[in-house]
Each structure stands twice: as C-alpha cells, then as structure tokens.
C-alpha cells in the first residue's frame, strides 16, 4: 500500500455538549480516492472543517505528511497555513467570489504560491510583472484542464450551476495541493453532470497525482470513484472498507441507505 498523506487519530470536536465528531480515526493514502459518507448531520462537514483549520478540534491529532516531507501536526493551524501545506478544499454550499471573473477566481488560488507584496505592487517592477503574467498563465492552464476555458471572462455568478461546482475545484487546484478535499461535489448536479464529474475527478487524480477525500451523498459517484469508503453516523465512524463492502454492510444500510438500495 502507498504511503499515508493524512493521518487522523481519535479526533474529537465538541460544541457545548454536542460531540459533532466523536473519536474518529482514519488514514488517507497517496493517490487514492477516499470517500466519507453518512446521513445528514453525521458530522462529515464538521470533520472537514477540522481538517482545514476552520475549527480547532477539541482533542485528537491531525497529522499531515506531504509526500517526501516530514510529518506536520496540523491541529489549530489557520486555514491559509493548511492550504500552504498542500490541502485544498471546496465548499458544500458554493462559495465563489461572485463578482470576480472565473479567471480571477482561479488567480486568487495562486495567492499562496506567489509573493508580490505592497511595494512590488506600487513599483510594479520586472519581477512583479513577470509573476502576474505567470499567475494568469497558470490559471488559464487550470481552466483548460477543467474545461472551463470558455467561461474565463465571465463573472462567477453568471455561470451555470454545474460549472460553478467545477470552478470550486479549479480554484482549489490552483493552490497546488497534494490532497484535495471535496465537500459534496455532485450536490445539485443532475445524473448526466455527475457522470461527467466522475470522469473529471479521475482525470485530476492521474494528471496531478492527487490524493482525494470526498464527502458525498450520491452513492453512484462514491461506488464509481472511491478506493476506500468510511461511513459516519452521529459523529462516529460506523464502518469502513471498499465501496462494495460498505454498501452491503447491514449497519450502513440501516442507518443510511435504506433497504432497497
């Protein structure tokens, strides 16, 4: 088995009396797609928010191991630091920069891997100019990969819904991640769009050598994509295994899928 890129140990996230994430441990391996499924309110998104620094977990460990680098303990790091380390995320309820163009949205993603400052901006020297050029160039490349090139100059708010979801992913890719966290990437997509999305995610995995963790309700997508599947309910992990194993697990069926799935 390939090496680990993320290692979660006994993660606990408590809000008042509510244990939204309760003693969750899981590993994510390099170049694998891991799915996290579970009923609404099971704590999946909260778990995501702990990983990406939006929340600081109550206890437990979040260890990030960038390929070929040393382990970093990520508890309590700010979201931008986590992004710099190489974890990028999308949001369940789309959070694009609505009044910026598609290209500009992706350009923001390049923020962490570039460094022109205030003085650079004012004097706009050769280095700054070249960096700007490179940002535009790289962003454009990413748009091509995501097949969003034709929308490049449109405002994000004017994009069709499916394309907005893709732009979320494009923007995350722009930060040069090794681990991509997708929060319900297919939510609100019709089956046709979902099928296309499966292809796109596959392609990204190979082209950028990405590891992917995704939260999803669409079992079709989960079954088709993931190498490993974890199931959460009431903040706890209740099952893990290959997608087939999970789909046939009686506990999972009872809590989540329903009899006739």
């Amino acid at each position: 088995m390939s090496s680990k890129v993320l290692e979660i140990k006994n993660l606990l996230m408590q809000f008042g009396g509510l244990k939204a994430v309760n003693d969750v441990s899981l590993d994510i391996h390099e170049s694998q797609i891991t799915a996290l499924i579970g009923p609404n309110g099971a704590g999946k998104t909260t778990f995501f928010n702990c990983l990406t620094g939006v929340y600081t977990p109550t206890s437990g460990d979040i260890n990030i191991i960038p390929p070929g680098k040393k382990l970093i303990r990520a508890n309590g790091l700010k979201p931008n630091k986590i992004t710099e380390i190489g974890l990028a995320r999308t949001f369940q309820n789309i959070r694009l920069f609505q009044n910026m163009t598609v290209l500009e949205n992706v350009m923001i993603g390049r923020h962490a891997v570039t460094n022109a400052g205030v003085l650079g901006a004012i004097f706009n020297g050769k280095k700054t100019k070249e960096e700007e050029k490179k940002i535009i160039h790289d962003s454009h490349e990413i748009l091509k990969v995501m097949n969003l090139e034709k929308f490049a100059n449109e405002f994000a708010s004017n994009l069709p819904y499916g394309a907005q979801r893709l732009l979320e992913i494009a923007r995350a890719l722009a930060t040069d991640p090794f681990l991509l966290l997708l929060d319900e990437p297919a939510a609100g997509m019709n089956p046709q769009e979902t099928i296309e999305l499966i292809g796109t995610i596959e392609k990204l995995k190979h082209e950028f050598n990405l590891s992917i963790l995704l939260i999803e309700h669409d079992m079709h997508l989960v079954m088709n994509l993931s190498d490993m599947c974890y199931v959460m309910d009431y903040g706890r992990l209740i099952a893990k295994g290959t997608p087939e194993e999970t789909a046939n697990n009686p506990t999972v069926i009872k809590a989540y899928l329903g009899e006739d799935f």
Partner: protein
Amino acid sequence: MDVGYFFKLLLSGLTRGSIYALIALGYTMVYGIIKLINFAHGELYMIGAFTGLIVASVLNYAGVDPVLTLVIATIFAIIFSSAFGVTIEKIAYKPLRNTQRLSALISAIGVSMFLQNFVLLFQTSDFLSFPNLIPEFKFLAPVENYLSSPQILIYICTAIFLIGFTVLVKFTKIGKAMRATAQDSKMSLLLGININKVISVTFLTGSAAAAIGGVLISSQVGQINFYIGFIVGIKAFVAAVLGGIGSIGGAVLGAFVLGLVESFGTGYISSDYEDLFAFLFLILILTFKPSGLLGKSLKQKV
C-alpha cells in the same frame, strides 16, 4: 471606602442604564429585523423629548396639574416619536431594503442630520428648560441624598416597559412574527406574515421606548437641546453591541453594564473622561468576546 458614595454611584449608574436600555432596545430590534444600524434612532429620543417639552410647557403655563401634565406630555411624546419612526422607515429605509446595507446606513445618517437640523431650525439651538413636573415622593426622604424621585420614576417606568415588551415579543402573535422576520424575512413572507406591518410595529415600539426615555431623562436633567439624541444614541448603540446586537436581553444587559461602568468610571476615576469609559469597556469586551455578552457566535456555517 465611602459606602454612601458607592451607593450613589450605583443608583445613578442604574438610572443611566435604564435610559440606555430604553433606547438600545430600539436599536437592537431594528437591527434584528432589517439589519440596519438606525443611526437616526437617537434623534427619535430627541424628538420625543422635544415633543414632551413643548406639550408639557403649554399645559404647565396654562396651570394644569403637574402629574397630569407629565402623563399627557409623555403620551404625546410617544405618539409623535412613533409616528416619526414609522415615517422615517417608510421614506428613507424601505426603498433601500434590498440594496447594500451601507447605502441604508448613509440614508440613516442623512435622516439623523435632517432631524437635528429640523429641530434646530424650527425651535432653537439653545438649551430649553424642562418644567419641573415630578412630585417629591415623601417616602424617599430618609434616602434623599442617594435617590431622587425622578430616579425612582425612571426605574419603575423602565421596568414596566421592559416587562410589557417581553410579553409582546415572547407571547403574542405579532411578537412571534417579529422574531421570525428577524431570522428569515423571505420565509416569513411565505408563511403569510406581512413583514411591512412587522417592520412598522418594530419601529413604532422602538420609537415609543425612546420617547419614554427622552421625557424621563429630560425631566430629571431639566434641560434639552437638539443635539442630545446623538451622543445618547451612540451610547445606546454601544450598549446594544456590548450585549450582542440583535439580542433583546443583551441590549438591556449591555445598557445596565454600560450605565454602571460610566457612573463608577466618572465617580472614581475622572469625569473628564466620561465618554471614554463606554468605548474602552466596549473594546475590552469585544476583544475577548467578539459577539458581545449575550450575542450568538457569528461563526458562519461553512
């Protein structure tokens, strides 16, 4: 330590707090429902005080009984303040309900300037003295060094208003509609709630509270001018934020805390810095509790 002095400050802090509470209530309600910092709310207090003064003077010079005068003046103050509040909303805020909040804020600033200068122009820029209408309560004689009749009246009126208001918001239908509108106005529409009516009632109640505060404090202090609303308005706003803006209990708590802080600050430290304590305390609290004393954490759902 001088215990007497301490009590004097405590009681005067509660008086300030009561007045701030009456005004902060309006701020917080309006904010809760239309998410607008009604910069002109302090002006409604001033309008209330002026209407009260005018009516009271007319009656007083005509020789009407002081207590009756005070009651009638307060009623007129409430009516006119509320009418102004509702009118302002219709003219200056309603058209801006679906635009950026900053535009509505500027509109509110415009209203504030307009009302100040309206009163300045049609009345005077000088201080006017408020007729002395509050009777001396005999039972206060043993403690008259610490507690005056107007103070007692302020406490009682504030308490009555706050209780009535709580009942209104908690148990009546319109109160429930107000809370619903504050949380999700679009959804409230879909449930058949007439939100224009809800907003009008909100402005009406808030302005009425401010008017009561205006008349009470004016009869205690004894004089008013067109500018009294502005600084008190800002203080009440501070109180509302201190408690957690949008939270009614928070506004009341914030108001009393602020009143006490100011009273003790001026009494024990220095009266030169009277207005400084409010802000200093606000900054201290918000640094440790960014959403105010009783405010819900602003953490958005991600």
